[in-house]
């Protein structure tokens, strides 16, 4: 494989891996903060145990997000030096601001929260977890402002052979950020709620001795999940409508819409012939795509072939069509997983309201598996967003092929790619091991200490909690 292909793989692997951890951080930080707030106001020990239990899982997940995030800060320069030169004047700013405004807050206050239970007053200690939640979500905002520039470049001019910022306000109020940030923010809520529902379901199913704690967690997560899944669909829909305007090729690829149609049909299932850009077999609902795109029965949705012709006029000869099958399926997997999660959350809330959670073992064991759904949806959503923008790295301005570092050879990339993959694989094993272990252990004290071959002087009590 050539250096460009390897660099793309490396970016895909490291970034996808990083984003396994981010949504849970975004959503769970808020939920833990809410739990601790209830504890602060009521003094109910249940909420203290819940805060500590979910907080421990949060910290394990957070650590993985932080360390894989270091790679993100450096790899634009390492692997995409020509990209960094071309858009650094704009793209570097939100990254630096993210570090200054958000990374410092989340890392400093998480340290205070973890070690500060006995050292800080209750109010100040509560404030630290809210600041962690705030910092994490501000961090997401700034990195998405950077990503939004890649999707929809604004506030710049082409000068000195690069894109230079002319309007910072335009950059941070990019229309794209108003649909993208809410989508990521709410997907964080969804991820956290499914995570909490699944682990609570595990305990409720096994009737472990902390039923009260997990009933309460289940209730909170069910409400959180309904709020999250409904809003993620609403904002996702408006994001798609926005893309019809600014990245029509992305929507055309998502729908495998080869020709422009007015009104356009929506595909339920398409088997396509990608090289010839035509359907082999398709089931479609007439007019539905237009309705979804414009909230109206009239309006043209542009197709791949017409857009290709249009872009050749605009940008010169070249292939401007992203991988259609990948776009089509990742989009459907994301939406499908979202719908299933909404149904699960609604049913969970229904059981809570009917007080029937404990008597629904089959649903509870189903929820245990449903923890995979948010991860599938988050990953396929980003695959779609980034792959269906190709061949562009910055839409309309720079192609991915022109962005790669000329000095980094295929051999060097092979070394780093293998290194990252092996290291990340090992860390994933350790991470899942710990999460499963603590999730099973529950909110109480640790299981009675088995006298392992522990070093002398180890006082078991010290390590409890």
């Amino acid at each position: 494989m050539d250096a460009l292909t390897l660099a793309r793989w490396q970016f895909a692997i490291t970034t996808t891996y990083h984003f396994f951890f981010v949504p849970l951080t975004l959503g769970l930080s808020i939920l833990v903060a809410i739990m601790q707030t209830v504890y602060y106001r009521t003094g109910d020990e249940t909420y203290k145990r819940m805060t500590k239990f979910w907080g421990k899982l949060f910290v394990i997940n957070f650590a993985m997000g932080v360390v894989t995030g270091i790679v993100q800060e450096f790899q634009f320069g390492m692997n995409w030096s020509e990209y960094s030169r071309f858009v650094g004047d704009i793209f570097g700013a939100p990254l630096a601001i993210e570090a200054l405004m958000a990374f410092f807050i989340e890392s400093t206050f998480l340290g205070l929260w973890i070690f500060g239970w006995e050292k800080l007053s209750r109010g100040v200690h509560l404030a630290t977890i809210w600041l962690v939640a705030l910092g994490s979500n501000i961090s997401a905002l700034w990195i998405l402002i950077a990503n939004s520039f890649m999707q929809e470049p604004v506030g710049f001019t082409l000068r000195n052979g690069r894109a230079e910022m002319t309007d910072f306000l335009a950059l941070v109020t990019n229309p794209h950020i108003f649909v993208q940030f809410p989508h990521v923010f709410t997907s964080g809520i969804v991820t956290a709620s499914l995570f909490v529902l699944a682990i609570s379901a595990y305990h409720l199913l096994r009737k472990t001795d902390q039923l009260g704690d997990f009933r309460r967690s289940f209730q909170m997560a069910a409400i959180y999940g309904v709020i999250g899944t409904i809003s993620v669909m609403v904002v996702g829909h408006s994001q798609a409508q926005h893309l019809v305007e600014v990245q029509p090729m992305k929507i055309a690829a998502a729908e495998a819409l080869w020709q422009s149609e007015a009104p356009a049909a929506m595909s339920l299932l398409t088997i396509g012939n990608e090289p010839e850009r035509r359907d082999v077999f398709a089931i479609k609902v007439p007019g539905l795509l237009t309705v979804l795109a414009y909230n109206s029965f009239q309006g043209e949705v542009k197709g791949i072939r017409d857009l290709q012709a249009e872009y050749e006029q605009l940008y010169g000869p070249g292939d401007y069509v992203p991988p259609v099958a990948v776009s089509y399926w990742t989009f459907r997997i994301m939406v499908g997983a979202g719908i299933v999660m909404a149904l699960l959350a609604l049913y969970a809330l229904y059981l809570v309201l009917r007080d029937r959670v404990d008597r629904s073992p089959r649903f509870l064991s189903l929820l245990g598996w449903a923890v995979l759904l948010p991860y599938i949806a988050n990953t396929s959503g980003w695959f779609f967003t980034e792959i269906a923008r190709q061949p562009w790295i910055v839409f309309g301005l720079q192609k991915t092929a022109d962005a790669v570092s000329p000095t980094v050879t295929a051999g060097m990339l092979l070394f780093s790619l293998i290194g990252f993959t092996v290291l990340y694989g090992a860390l994933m094993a350790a991470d899942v091991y710990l999460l499963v272990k603590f999730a099973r252990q529950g909110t109480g004290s640790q299981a009675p200490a088995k006298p392992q071959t522990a070093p002398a002087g180890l006082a078991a009590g010290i390590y409890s909690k």
Partner: protein
Amino acid sequence: MIDLNIIWFILVAVLFIGFFVLEGFDYGVGILLPFLAKNDQERRIVINTIGPFWDGNEVWILTAGGAIFAAFPHWYATMFSGFYLPLVLMLFALIVRGVAFEFRSKDRHPTWRSVWDWALFAGSAVPALLWGVALGNLLRGVPIDQNMTYVGGFFNLLNPFALLGGLLSLSIFTLQGAIFLSLKTEEQIMERAVAATKKVGPVATVIVFLFVILGYFLTDAFTRLGVNPGLIPIAAGGVLLAAGWFIHQSRLGWAFIMNTLAIVFSMITIFMSLFPRVIVSSLNPDWSLTIYNASSSPYTLKVMSIVALIFVPIVLLYQGWTYWVFRERVGRHSALEY
């Protein structure tokens, strides 16, 4: 005339200095972990001396990276792609280090703990060494062509001067860690830390002077700073000797301050001898990257200056407060549950 390019050069220098000052002892503690802590409880105590701080300290380098990207995109692009393999190693180290802090105590199995303790050691030692190598190369110059592209290989970066720079940062950080531990621990660990300062101190001092002598022959730092280099480089040597004297006198609070100042003044000296260049080309002086040809547009620099002016003081305030909250020594009687 001070312009925004100069201000951003200074700001990047400040971020690097902040990073080396804070993360310096932090790395040192990780490096000393296997040598000063003899059992699991002692290892926990040693790690907990930096437990609440290390993550916040590490953000300094992320912010420095972000600031270089925002203010000097060509510096960011050339340095990070040019130093590719060392950076990959650094990333591997930082990744296992960060995870080790959170994971090591979450399982009791001795193998599990031993693996993460060694990850913490390696994850601290490798970056401590590589930062010095990187600075040595920046000072000495690396092959940069007229297109701001690094045209050397991996082994160009492993020249004797840069490697000595690596040993320098490794030894200074280890010393700083030893002094820090002697201030933050009690009983046997403290005694061992004090003993370590007396062993590492002289080694570090010798390496510093070797580096200065070699630097005289291999870099243009001396010609640029002149025969009389001014107050700061001389002060850098002075405070280092003072640190040695205080260590000898076992007045470790003062030793910590002096060693910190030694790091600060040496970093300022390095940035002064670079100025206004950010990467020196060993092929042709005209091809060096400077704060002018590598920078962002004046508009971006202005925006970023306003942002920095607001947020840097806030960060300093709350990070300082963290150190105040956790100012006590960590010992057997401290809460070690984490």
